[in-house]
């Protein structure tokens, strides 16, 4: 398996934090009152760092990213916590300040390129919008730059595509357009929400390489959400494993693969097929399902599914504690923490 790239100096964990999310809690209004979806999540991304986020479908990855930028749908609200970007809390910013950050300092690539582009607007116009509103470009300038961006993300015949409507492009091309929109204003932070899920394997790899190139060229930070640990292993510096709206393990990418400490992470890694596996070997999967919003267990949210769960796991919620790599490898699991103490 490819390891973290060696050309670029890995940003140290101590480097300045560009994004710092503290205790963010997200609730959804239901018939039976509010239910917690994301429970006091902590995240941080250093300047120039690339963070991978993995976790089961529905564990709140997308909502966490959306909530930072205050893009949540109507019934879902942030009730607690802060999200600092370059030292300022996005949750407390005025709307006009926030607007400058959105699309300007922070670029977003959304999960579903089929629905995330406006079907009745030409690609060129959609690409030009951030340039016009953040860079103050004229329409002609923005159009020229939009053409360059399309070329940058590798769309053939870029200039001709500016006047196309989204439905005239293939899924892969739309995804590239989304990436181009996210990158339009050379953001300091790029948030990519499963940008490759809908694509076939070769294009997935192309897009990962593309983002990697651009990151190295522009020196931006990246948050990459995915289900596919293997795909991003060569791209990210650090990985956060999410379960039921909390970070259960935070580790440099090498450490995570060599020493997965949370039982859930171990389960995730075990479910990735390896070339060395026998053909007949069955993929392991984690039994049970994650808790529904509003029915979170009292203790560790993973305890009901955990093969190693003890009495204490059902009673108290473990917090993220450093277990190695000078505190850069942290895990929220009583069993793993105790194992370390014993060693």
């Amino acid at each position, binding site marked *: 398996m490819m390891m973290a790239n060696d050309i670029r100096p890995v940003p140290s964990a101590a480097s300045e934090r560009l994004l710092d999310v503290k205790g963010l809690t997200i609730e959804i209004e239901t018939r039976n009152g509010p239910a917690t979806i994301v429970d006091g999540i902590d995240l941080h991304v250093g300047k120039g760092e690339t963070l991978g986020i993995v976790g089961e479908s529905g564990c709140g990855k997308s909502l966490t990213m*959306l909530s930072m*930028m205050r*893009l949540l*749908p*109507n019934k879902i609200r942030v009730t607690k916590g802060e999200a600092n970007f370059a030292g300022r809390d996005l949750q407390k910013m005025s*709307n006009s300040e926030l*607007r*400058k*950050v*959105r*699309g*300007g300092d922070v670029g*977003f690539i*959304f999960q*579903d390129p089929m*629905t*995330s*582009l*406006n*079907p*009745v*607007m030409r690609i060129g116009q*959609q690409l030009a*919008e*951030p340039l016009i*509103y*953040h860079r103050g470009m004229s329409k002609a300038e923005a159009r020229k730059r939009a053409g360059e961006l399309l070329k940058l993300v590798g769309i053939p015949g870029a200039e001709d595509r500016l006047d196309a*409507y989204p*439905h005239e492009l293939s899924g892969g091309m739309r995804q590239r357009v*989304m990436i181009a*929109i996210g990158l*339009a204003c050379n953001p300091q932070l790029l948030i990519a929400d499963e940008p490759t899920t809908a694509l076939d394997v070769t294009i997935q790899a192309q897009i990962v390489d593309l983002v990697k190139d651009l990151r190295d060229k522009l020196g931006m930070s990246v948050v990459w959400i995915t289900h596919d640990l293997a795909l991003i292993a060569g791209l990210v510096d650090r990985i956060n494993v999410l379960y039921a709206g909390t970070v259960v393990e935070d580790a440099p990418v090498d450490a995570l693969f060599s020493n997965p400490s949370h039982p859930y992470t171990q389960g995730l890694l075990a479910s990735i097929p390896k070339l060395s596996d026998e053909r007949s070997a069955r993929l392991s999967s984690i039994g049970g399902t994650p808790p529904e919003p509003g029915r979170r267990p009292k203790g560790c949210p993973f305890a009901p599914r955990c093969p190693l769960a003890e009495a204490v796991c059902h009673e108290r919620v473990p917090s993220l504690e450093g277990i190695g790599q000078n505190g850069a490898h942290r895990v929220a699991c009583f069993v793993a923490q105790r194992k370390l103490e014993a060693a």
Partner: protein
Amino acid sequence: MLRYITTRFVVWIPSVLLVMLGVYALAYYGAGDPIKLIFLRAPGDVAYNPERIEAIRESAGLNRPFLVQFCSYIWNLLHGNFGNSLSSGRSVWAMISAAAPVSFKLALCSVILTAVVAIPLGLIAALNQNTRTDYAILGSALFLWAIPAYVAGPMLMVLLIMVLPGSAVPYGWGGVFDVRILLPLLVLSFQPIALIVRQTRAAVIEVLSEDFVRTARAKGVPETMVALRHILRPVLTPVVTQLGLIMITIVNGAIFVELVFGLPGLGRLTVQALTNTDYPVILAITLIGSFLVMISNLLVDVLYPLLDPRANDTRRSR
């Protein structure tokens, strides 16, 4: 595109012919003898004179079989001859060309007023979904939708007189720029406005939950521009498709509004023609009404691909 328009036109013709045939049959078999009406207007002795009646019948071609008469009527129509009114003897074409401008101006103003008032209101209601503002707009729309023009018109007149005792009754026609147009225009537009408010609101709510609106916000597009460029644009498509329905509402409503407010338009002409069982006039008006609705439906079909680029492909492949 031209071929498409032609096809639509060709498809429309048999249905309108069928309707005309129906109305003509009603006139032929139902309405009683039109000769008596002509006879009453004839100069000279009005005494009952079978020979003269026969003579008139002969000269008007009314003794021929039904289908022959109908075909000759259509034949005349194709030559731009709408016949003469039975009650006044004037040319139907002259009567209609005198009345039509009044109705058309009123209808056009009503469509404009509807678009200008209803689309923003629908947008506001949707952007404030489930708040007081929303309920107020939606409730008023439901209310306006349910009030017939011949109830709203007189009630507003009563109200106007009570509030402004000195003011003149808004009765009669003075052109588009006359104050008297205000009340009829308002009443005529109530139902179309209600229709479009609800349509816009529903469409905006649907678009609001679309991912591309979120994309626009994530790009840092200002809220007003999000509303105008990303929300309103896709909403216009379903709203414009209601144009045909609006036309029907307006054509129906015009009959009452013109009657209540004494406007010399097609609606009042219709009612007069009905009272006098003046069939040449009724036939001509039916034709015009159906033509109007057909044209507005056609307009929708022509506009649609301009508003929704996706529609182009499906139409071509159809």
